[in-house]
């Protein structure tokens, strides 16, 4: 059985003058899937999201959203079922949080009664009657999430949703995202934060407008085949010298050293260092997302 992808992009490019912001991107997001787009600032993440929403027209390529052209006439109808949280979301400062949400609810033709529940859901019930101008960055972001949730959206676009949020707010975001996925919604998010990306089924890495890799996190780790680092703490540096002389390790200070090993050599390496005399702690550090992105980007360039 083949289902129509919720978001489908084929050979999509966006060019301003001579410079490509997005170049030849293919991406297909299945219904109910959560895909995270990762990349540095200016990698083309936001542009890609805007094109998927029909807010920007691609220079080349084809995009469909829920099977339709997102910029076409039919788009008006299904936009009611789409949620969007833009990067650095802003609202008119003179309105209260409640008024803002009711304003957007009217535009989406959602019953106004839902808005109070949503404010409750994102933890803004107490601040609902305060002006948005007095809100903190985190509160504005929560309000942004609340408006994206109006109308039980089938597709959500979250552009850097957790930037500048504290741990508690982040967790609230993740809870909401999990609920949405349980309800069968499709999510496309762009992010820098590793904790965001762990929520996703698949990760798309972008670099200078190109999509350099796309897959689940373990798959990407395998693809990059980066060594992981093992950090060993010892009570007596001298006792470990014999071992460290045989392997290439790097001493951080008198009592700590690091060694690197391939992913499949991990168990063997841990076993050997754990037998050392005076070992008091072993930390296993998988390659960070930044390492992973850089490596995959480098491989793509070659």
């Amino acid at each position, binding site marked *: 059985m083949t289902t129509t992808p919720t978001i489908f992009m084929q050979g999509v490019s966006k060019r301003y003058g001579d410079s490509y912001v997005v170049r030849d991107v293919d991406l297909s997001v299945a219904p109910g899937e959560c895909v995270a787009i990762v990349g540095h600032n200016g990698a083309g993440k936001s542009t890609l999201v805007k094109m998927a929403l029909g*807010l920007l027209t691609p220079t080349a390529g084809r995009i469909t959203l829920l099977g339709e052209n997102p910029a076409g006439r039919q788009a008006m109808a299904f936009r009611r079922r789409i949620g969007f949280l833009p990067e*650095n979301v802003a609202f008119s400062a003179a309105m209260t949080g409640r008024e803002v949400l009711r304003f957007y609810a009217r535009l989406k033709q959602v019953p106004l009664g839902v808005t109070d529940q949503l404010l409750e859901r994102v933890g803004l019930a107490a601040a609902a009657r305060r002006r948005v101008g007095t809100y903190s960055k985190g509160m504005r972001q929560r309000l942004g999430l609340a408006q994206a949730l109006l109308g039980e959206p089938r597709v959500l676009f979250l552009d850097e949703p957790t930037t500048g949020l504290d741990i508690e707010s982040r967790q609230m975001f993740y809870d909401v995202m999990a609920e949405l996925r349980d309800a069968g919604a499709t999510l496309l998010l762009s992010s820098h934060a590793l904790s965001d990306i762990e929520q996703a089924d698949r990760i798309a890495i972008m670099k200078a407008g190109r999509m350099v890799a796309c897959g689940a996190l373990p798959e990407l780790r395998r693809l990059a085949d980066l060594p992981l680092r093992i950090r060993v703490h010892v009570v007596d540096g001298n006792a470990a010298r014999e071992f460290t002389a045989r392997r290439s390790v790097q001493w951080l200070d008198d009592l700590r050293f690091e060694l690197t090993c391939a992913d499949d050599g991990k168990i063997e390496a841990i076993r050997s260092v754990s037998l050392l005399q005076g070992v008091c702690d072993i930390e296993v550090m998988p390659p960070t997302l930044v390492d992973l992105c850089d490596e995959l980007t480098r491989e793509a360039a070659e």
Partner: protein
Amino acid sequence: MNAIATIAGREIRDGLRNRWALGAVLLMAGLALTLAFLGSAPTGVVGASPLEVAVVSLSSLTIFLVPLIALLLSHDAIVGERDRGTLLLLLSYPLSRWQILFGKFLGHLSILTVATVLGYGAAGAALALAAGEFDADSLASFARMVGSSVLLGAVFVSLGYLISATVRERATAAGLAIGIWLVLVVLYDMALLGLLVADQGRTISAAAFNWLLLLDPADIFRLLNLAGLSKTSLFAGMAGLAEQMQFGRAVLLTALAAWVAVPLALAAFVFSRKEP
């Protein structure tokens, strides 16, 4: 339709919240009252009713003030939202760009209408208390003056949107708004006068001159109010012009309406083409 009303409602609420509407009403009422009472002092000699004198002086006030308030309200409408980052989200909602623009237009025009009607109404009511009864003719010309002031405001709201939809920077929009005000309210008349003096009636016929007046909404407004009534036009020193006027009131109103519709349509066109 619902979406347009929602946008209009937000603009009105915003205007009330940031004291825009209140400021405009107070400014209009304050200046209108001052002018009405200063201007009513010497009327006994000319024989015009105080209300007709008020029509003349308030018309001059409208020409300077209403375009300024309208442009202040409108020049930031699109470029400001883009700058603050609220536009992108709004565009992802199920409403089209012309609905956004038209909703804003209705909202801003409502604020302007309330400010004009309340401000000038206060002046009219104060005069009525001071001078007693007015004849129907004067009342009608006062009402026409208030109505056409709102229409003139609508022209400059449209022009403000055209600026706002076109430029990338808020500062550019503000500069252009001042420029447009200066050209249409002040400079065009001066240039026209200079042209007439230099020409000495050799090439520019009266008909051509009338057409030239239609190219400036402030002049159309002037013709509508100052050359309309025989008594008023005598008092306003527009009688000579009124005699040569080939256009009736309907034509003048149509021209003013076109000054609203054309910039608004152009603004909608530019806005729909522009990437957020």
